[in-house]
């Protein structure tokens, strides 16, 4: 079994009215050698919507909380570094 694997997997399709929904998830697997354990991070990535007329539409699943957290972390770090640079002058 490989040490690190990243794979996008489709789920079971669900028929809802005229649309057929297929969810997709991305799993990051980090397994220690010798069945000693590991780390798995699985998250939803997108949803494929297929209409009866043959149209296909991919809707991304956006993690707003994660984006907001990273943005705040980035802003905080940027302003902190800016303060540090101003203080040195």
């Amino acid at each position, binding site marked *: 079994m490989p040490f690190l694997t990243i794979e996008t997997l489709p789920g079971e399709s669900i028929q809802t009215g005229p649309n057929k929904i297929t*969810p997709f998830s991305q799993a990051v697997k980090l397994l220690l050698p010798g*069945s000693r354990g590991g780390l798995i991070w*699985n998250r939803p990535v997108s949803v494929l919507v297929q209409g009866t007329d043959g149209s296909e539409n991919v809707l991304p699943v956006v993690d707003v909380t994660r984006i907001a957290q990273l943005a*705040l972390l980035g802003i905080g770090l940027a302003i902190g570094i800016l303060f540090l640079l101003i*203080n040195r002058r």
Partner: protein
Amino acid sequence: MKETSINPVELSAMIEKSAAAIVEPVERTLEHFLEIASVKSVYDSPVKHGETMIIPAAEVLGGLGFGMGVGTAVGENFGKKDKEEGAEVEEKPVEISQSGTGEKAPGGGGGGGGGGGRVFARPVAVIISGPDGVRVEPVVDATKIALAFFTALGFMVGMAGRMRRPPRSQE
């Protein structure tokens, strides 16, 4: 005191058997752990309400670790005294006390193992399918965002405070 003799070969077979008994539940747990990498662990079963259908989607993060060891004391001291005295070394059966008095047995072995793990799950979005089409609504965790905001604010205030402090005089 009743004493029984066990051959080292039998002892190592016993240890191997006990090791297999440890490995089996570990492998079973690992198999269950790997199941969280499937799509079913991210998307829950759909919930129908009238003409609307809702599919909850969550992010799953799991970590697991095991450790185990098996050893025997037979190999270390078995026949050591005979070697030191220059006598001929021959394999003797290991004597294990079964008296239950807590006396040290001349030879023995054992194994042990342990492990731990944790799985976190967090709602990310909800897929809503209704008469007006399919849409993905994000699930916003205001508490986490507020915590991140106050952490960033605290860092900025701390840096600003350091700026205002007069520089240390060098003497």
